[in-house]
């Protein structure tokens, strides 16, 4: 979700721009819509509205965390600074139990390999016709 926001809005891209989200209602709506649009409605318990609600909760937690962490005068970033002055944490980071509950929601690994869509390859003969009797391609 953070990557979507930083991608959609150049104003959110720099590391220190993590606190800007509260002033960007249009970006916030675009982030939610992008995520909801990508998920098949039939695969979501409660449908698209439930997913939109979950995304909104996360966005609220993002804004709350950024506000709380920068209120003391510290620079708060996405991931370049040390905890707790960063929004994102790796799944096994030892600092996570010490974070506030809204902040603890922002735990994610770096790889998107397992959630990336796939493209099926359909092997054909050299002329482009289907290969008959190919049990390995069934």
């Amino acid at each position, binding site marked *: 979700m953070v990557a979507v926001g930083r991608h959609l809005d150049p104003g959110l891209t720099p590391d220190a721009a993590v606190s800007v989200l509260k002033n960007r209602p249009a970006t916030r709506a675009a982030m939610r819509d992008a995520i909801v649009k990508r998920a098949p409605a039939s695969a979501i318990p409660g449908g698209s509205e439930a997913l939109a609600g979950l995304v909104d909760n996360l966005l609220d937690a993002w804004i709350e965390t950024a506000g709380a962490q920068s209120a003391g005068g510290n620079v708060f970033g996405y991931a370049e600074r040390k905890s707790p002055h960063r929004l994102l944490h790796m799944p096994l980071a030892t600092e996570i139990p010490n974070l506030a509950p809204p902040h603890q929601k922002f735990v994610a690994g770096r790889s998107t390999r397992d959630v990336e*869509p796939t*493209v099926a*390859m359909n*092997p054909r*003969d*050299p002329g482009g016709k289907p*290969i008959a009797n*190919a049990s390995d*391609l069934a």
Partner: protein
Amino acid sequence: MNKNAQRLSQVVSTFGPGAMIDLPTRSVIVGGLDLWEMKGNSFSVISEQRITVRLEQLLKAQSRLDESKVLSLPPPPINDSRPGGLPSYVIAPVFPAYFVCDHVETVTSSGRSVRRRRLVRWQDLDTTGGRRKFVFDDGKKSDVTPIRFVCACDKGHAGLSARFTR
């Protein structure tokens, strides 16, 4: 995940159109845009103004895109495995179409015993088994391995190297 599938980022980079790749059971060359089967709801366009504007600037500055053209970003046909959905895929013709038999023959030539592996073409392979084996005259079957020596002309047409086509 379909065993003959590529991740989306692979198809738009190293393993895209024209790439020769090894699937689990076949060596193929990935088809170009004319071989992308966009059925059902698989056709979509990525709305990404920042990238399209940047690409248009770059390509027009290099005279590779007409000034009047506007780019769009259609992704490859994503494999939607929902029941009842129309299949979407990229056609990938088998390539290379020459193979070497895994079975080693021993023949006598000029009084000497010689071991050799037979070179066969796609059209020589066993049709009853989906062209994955070669059947010798005595009925023995052999698995085959695609020949890896390939070449391409300046226009990108791929073929076997001259050594194997003479």
